[in-house]
């Protein structure tokens, strides 16, 4: 007896009970669809968090001053000023795994344009800063190296600042604004970046050459931060180590001294958020997986009923020459057909459901091939697992008793 005729027999048996076969399938359909939709929602939210974090520049490395020890007393991290232009030069000269480096000297203050004013922060950086942050201009131009060298009073405005100190029909480019009474010429407007992962408005900012900010506003040789972009996300760890070594040398730290700076990468942030959404995915999948098991039990239940109901048929098949293995395979294939057909419909339904969720609820969803493959595999295994026992029961029937079964 070949597999083809076995499948044929099983198909005919299912055709004789279409509604029941469909209802049995429904358990598997819902299970598989739920797994795929849930994983898609989980993966989608994970992806969107990752994208948000990457929008900050996924290969961006941030260097901050760190707590230092003064005569045995550890000082507050923010009180320490350790990053200077020498560090920038050292990194530029020695580091191999980086693309760009920019200092950041920041300050808060009041910005005024005509009758409107707004409290915001100014970030003094080098022209590379926008590349490192992965931040395009909406309008205008970026200041140049010579602007940095001459400490030119030019600036780029974030969208929030533009909205607050300019009338809607007013063009900010070329206008002169005042930050803490110092006039700046607006030469560009930054593209809207939105809130960062912590809910901070990234567009509430003025960007100017760091020399201008240091000389005219903070009056300090120190930077609050240094931003570095690694050559790729893959080498961020190498770049981090390299920068640490360079800064330790540049700060003349002894091997026993602790770092007076801290190097942070976006990867750490991404991992933190990913693990949260990973947990969500696992939970959703577990719930969906349970419904798949329930579907499997449904198959087992129906197969038992079917075996009992068709006892005479089994007896007849045996009397005309079916071996135990033929009967076993027949019922097993019936169970597998139910689960695989259910699985296929479930996959289609799951994909449709995730699309609908992303269209109507505008939740991000991501249907992954692995979740399709996995749930399909699971439901095939479910069919075999839950179909085997009833099939085995059928194959062990005594043909004499089966034929006389009422």
């Amino acid at each position: 007896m070949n597999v083809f005729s076995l499948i044929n027999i099983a198909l005919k048996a299912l055709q004789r009970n279409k509604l029941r076969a469909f209802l049995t399938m429904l358990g598997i359909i819902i299970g598989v669809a739920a797994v795929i939709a849930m994983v898609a929602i989980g993966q989608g939210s994970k992806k969107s968090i990752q994208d948000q974090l990457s929008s900050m520049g996924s290969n961006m490395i941030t260097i901050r001053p760190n707590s230092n020890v003064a005569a045995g007393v550890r000082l507050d991290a923010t009180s320490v000023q350790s990053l200077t232009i020498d560090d920038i030069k050292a990194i530029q000269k020695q580091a191999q795994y980086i693309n760009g480096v920019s200092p950041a000297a920041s300050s808060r203050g009041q910005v005024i344009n005509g009758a409107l004013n707004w409290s915001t922060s100014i970030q003094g950086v080098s022209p590379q800063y926008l590349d490192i942050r992965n931040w395009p201009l909406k309008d205008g131009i970026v200041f140049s190296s010579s602007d940095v060298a001459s400490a030119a009073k030019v600036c780029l405005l974030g969208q929030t600042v533009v909205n607050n100190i300019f009338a809607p029909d007013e063009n900010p480019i070329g206008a002169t604004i005042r930050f803490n009474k110092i006039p700046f010429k607006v030469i560009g407007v930054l593209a809207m970046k939105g809130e960062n992962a912590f809910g901070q408005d990234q567009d509430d900012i003025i960007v100017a050459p760091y020399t201008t900010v240091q000389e005219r506003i903070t009056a300090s040789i120190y930077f609050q931060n240094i931003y570095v972009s690694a050559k790729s996300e893959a080498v961020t760890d190498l770049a981090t180590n390299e920068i640490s070594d360079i800064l330790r040398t540049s700060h003349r730290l002894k091997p026993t001294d602790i770092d007076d700076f801290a190097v942070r990468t976006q990867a750490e942030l991404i991992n933190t958020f990913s693990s949260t959404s990973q947990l969500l995915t696992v939970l959703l999948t577990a719930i969906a997986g349970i419904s798949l098991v329930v579907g499997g039990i449904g198959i087992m239940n129906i197969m038992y009923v079917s075996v009992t109901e068709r006892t005479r048929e089994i007896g007849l098949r045996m009397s005309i020459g079916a071996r135990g293995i033929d009967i076993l395979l027949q019922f097993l294939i019936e169970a597998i057909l139910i689960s695989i057909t259910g699985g296929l419909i479930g996959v289609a339904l799951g994909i449709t459901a995730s699309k609908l969720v992303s269209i109507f609820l505008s939740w991000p969803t991501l249907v992954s091939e692995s979740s399709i493959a996995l749930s399909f595999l699971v439901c095939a295994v479910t069919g075999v697992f839950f179909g085997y026992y009833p099939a085995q029961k059928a194959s062990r029937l005594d043909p004499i008793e089966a034929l006389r079964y009422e």
Partner: protein
Amino acid sequence: MGNKILELQNIKREFRMGSEIVRALKGVSFDVQSGEFVTIMGSSGSGKTTLLNTLGCLDKPTEGIYLLDGVNVGTLSRNDLARLRNNKIGFVFQAYNLLPRTSALENVELPLLYNPSISVKQRRERAMKALEAVKLADRVDHTPNQLSGGQQQRVAIARALVNEPVMILADEATGNLDSRTSFEIMALMQELNQVHGKTILFVTHEPDIASFSSRTIFLRDGKVIKDTMNENKRSAKEVLASLPVSDDY
């Protein structure tokens, strides 16, 4: 004629019912030659059913030797018995045992599905031929609930014929049918026996039916009490013709 299809030597079959041992067959011996039409008669409790199960290779005797077409059934495994049933025996049951919602043709094809040496095309051809032999060639696509009792039994007979068995084993095959249809079935059986040379073993408890066969074996309390050749075998066709037409409705 002449070669032995069946050879039973002192067949005994015992069942254990709790602590008691029930002896259903207490030493049955007889031979059946190719081309014979044998009825096996006996009241309930005579061991008829047990004998039928043994003859049909559904059961093995506790003691004694049963040779079917030269094969010693007692030594075979479950799977070998299944193959033997598939190749050598055609069953006809009292309740027809057709698959519901399945066409006559597919019902007849069923035994051939379990014979791997037969192709799909051969299967179809042989099933058609068997249906023609029972005069149902115009009903191939009908499902059992679209057929009368007599027609259903004829589908079942076609199913018994399709694998070209050495014998047809009928178990009260007319038990569910009215007398006219019973005679029709018996006429068909006689035709298969005489024209096609099929060996038929027919289990029944109706003497009326037994009179159509060439030989009758009487069973009582697990033993053969009488084994006679029928001198004046009736023709079911003639009986059918002699029935008044008004009997129909």
